[in-house]
């Protein structure tokens, strides 16, 4: 055994060991001794699941840009995205993914909300394009109180509206620890607000979203700096909703719901379980088939296949790849393709053996000759994989997460499959292969 082969062999052992560590559960107990998975500095090593597996909601909105000047569109889109991001955060969704996309001139907003089971509420919060306005309380003559509506009560317009509000957020009052909603106005809004707070000092100033009053706080002091606080007996959820609603009034572009998907977590879990079961049984059949057909060689190929699985899973965790159900199918399909390299090689080896070459030479020739076919055939699959994955986000190609989830595991699978099918099995055979003359 020469030096190079020995080096490669240890490299493979090292890789396997590394993959095992990456893939081990967070805590493992063997003989009452606890082993912990080392922490990786840059990111969590947990597998990431897409919405279809983990449950959650995805929403696609059409954005109406027809009323905006062309040169203002990019900044309006960015501010729309920022606004929605704030609202979603206030709604309390962690790891929400908000993207702008442009499909042949039509601007869209894609929102993914992992773990959200009730999207109706989310849609209401996100999609509301209501107009925000601030109106002061008037004194209603006693004879009219019976017929007066809230709108009549607050009918003195202050001229303030959503465009004057920069942002609204939830704060905790440092004195009593209660949640409050803060308002920050633009310079122009500050002046209007100062005038309004003078006029309605010790009276109520109602905040309207379209025709509904969302809050009607009493003005306690004259506010000159454009930073106001609404306090009251808020629960933190109320304060969050109010702040989100106030931000809602400030949408720079109107949006319309185009598509909504909502997947319950139980359904996703069911998919994972079934997918994993199908994958394992398929893998078992492939392994038996390989041993049945190629005997000892097939056994080595099966070891290669296990290493393939370990490395692939490690890369899913490291990159990280967000696993979707089509992604799992892509992985399962690429297992089949990974075995293909070995089948090509072994078929070549057999031919060389039939021609009377000694085993070691036949093996090396098999690997060498099969390499061209492996390379060419897999390049074709990668070409299609890239078109499906659409790395440059070309708008004339698919951008759906499902298709991409499939493409990414397929492409990764092909590269790793070539590595394990050619490099790993070859070196394993060189080291463990029988020395038949």
């Amino acid at each position, binding site marked *: 055994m020469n030096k190079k082969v020995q080096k490669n062999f240890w490299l493979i052992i090292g890789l396997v060991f590394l993959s095992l560590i990456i893939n081990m559960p967070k805590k493992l107990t063997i003989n009452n001794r606890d082993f912990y998975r080392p922490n990786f500095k840059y990111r969590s090593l947990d597998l990431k699941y897409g919405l279809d597996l983990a449950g959650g909601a995805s929403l696609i909105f059409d954005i109406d840009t027809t009323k905006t000047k062309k040169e203002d569109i990019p900044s309006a889109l960015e501010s729309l995205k920022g606004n929605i991001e704030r609202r979603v955060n206030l709604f309390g969704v962690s790891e929400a993914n908000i993207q702008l996309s442009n499909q042949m001139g039509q601007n869209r907003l894609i929102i993914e909300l992992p773990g959200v089971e009730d999207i109706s509420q989310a849609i209401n919060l996100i999609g509301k394009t209501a107009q925000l306005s601030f109106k002061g309380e008037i004194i209603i003559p006693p004879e009219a109180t019976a017929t007066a509506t809230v709108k009549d009560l607050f009918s003195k317009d202050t001229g303030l509206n959503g465009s004057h509000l920069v942002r609204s957020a939830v704060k905790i009052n440092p004195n009593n620890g209660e949640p409050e909603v803060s308002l920050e106005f633009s310079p122009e809004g500050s002046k209007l607000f100062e005038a309004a707070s003078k006029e309605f000092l010790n009276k109520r100033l109602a905040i309207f979203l379209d025709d509904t009053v969302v809050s009607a706080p009493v003005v306690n002091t004259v506010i000159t700096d454009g930073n106001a606080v609404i306090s009251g007996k808020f629960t933190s959820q109320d304060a969050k909703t109010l702040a989100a609603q106030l931000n809602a009034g400030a949408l720079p572009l109107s949006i319309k719901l185009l598509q909504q998907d909502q997947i319950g977590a139980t359904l996703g879990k069911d998919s994972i379980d079934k997918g994993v079961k199908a994958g394992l049984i398929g893998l078992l059949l492939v392994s038996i088939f390989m041993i049945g057909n190629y005997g000892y060689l097939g056994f080595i190929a099966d070891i290669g296949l296990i290493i393939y699985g370990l490395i692939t899973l490690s890369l899913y965790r490291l990159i990280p790849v967000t696993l979707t159900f089509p992604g799992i199918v892509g992985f399962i399909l690429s297992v089949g393709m990974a075995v293909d390299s070995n089948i090509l090689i072994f078929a070549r080896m057999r031919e060389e053996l039939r021609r009377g070459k000694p085993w070691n030479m036949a093996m090396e020739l098999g690997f060498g000759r099969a390499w061209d076919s492996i390379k060419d055939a897999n390049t074709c699959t990668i070409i299609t994989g890239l078109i499906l994955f659409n790395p440059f986000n070309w708008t*004339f190609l698919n951008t759906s997460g499902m298709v991409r989830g499939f493409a990414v595991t397929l492409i990764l699978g092909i590269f790793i499959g070539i590595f394990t099918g050619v490099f790993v099995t070859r070196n394993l055979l060189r080291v463990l292969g029988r020395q038949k003359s």
Partner: protein
Amino acid sequence: MNIMKFRPVFFILSGLMIVISLFSIIKWRFQLSVDFIGGTVWEINTDKSKSDIEKIFQKEKIEINSISQTSTNQYVLKFKPISNEDKQKIEPNFKTLRFESLGPSLGKELMRKTIVAIILSSLALLWFIGSKFKDWTFGLGAILANFHDAFILIGSFSLFGHFFGAELDTLFVTALLTTLSSSVHDTVVTFDRMRELKHQNLKIDWVQLANQAVSETIVRSINNSMTIIFMLTSLVVLGGASTRWFAAALLVGCICGTYSSTAVAIPIVLFFKKLQKH
């Protein structure tokens, strides 16, 4: 092994499959999913009976296009797009497992993108194979075999749709494009062998060359397809309902791809070689 003498048989078999596909597509068309035509799919979990569920929707004047039971207490309902207000009214009646709603405009987009992707990947493969083998007939053979597979896959889903209710959706499109790549995979391996044999013996007749190349690679080709077929069959049988047809589409594509690399791609190359000679 003189496989190429069966060329007329292959021709008839492929022709027959194409005719059946064509017939089914014209007569029965497709069961298009909401991905293509827009609408709402609502998967629910409830212990209510089917007629009770129907009554709930009737009360809100929402027309149910179809309702099917997938397992105990689990139903898939389909509608024209449901508004969010209506959904909120009905939602408390049962547990929502999945709710998918989209407008019809996305369907046209999907259709257009699929066609663009097929053309683009065909051109890319034509260019790659053509330049790799320095022979345009090889590229053409591979691409036509590809179209043959794609067409039969589409046709078979028209049949499956008519008899078993299989739908065309985004996943089907993915399966279609994957078939294009895996079909070429086998073809390239056989072509590769033909090129190698040609280098060894420049005077060899093309038909004889094809026979030798096929007989040397067919065992590998079948073995390889078997492994993919194992994986996919286990997915079809054991996988969830949502991706069963996806796996089935890949399976049909895989079987077609194995068949066509020997029975379509090579006969086409031989056909053009014969034309070139005259």
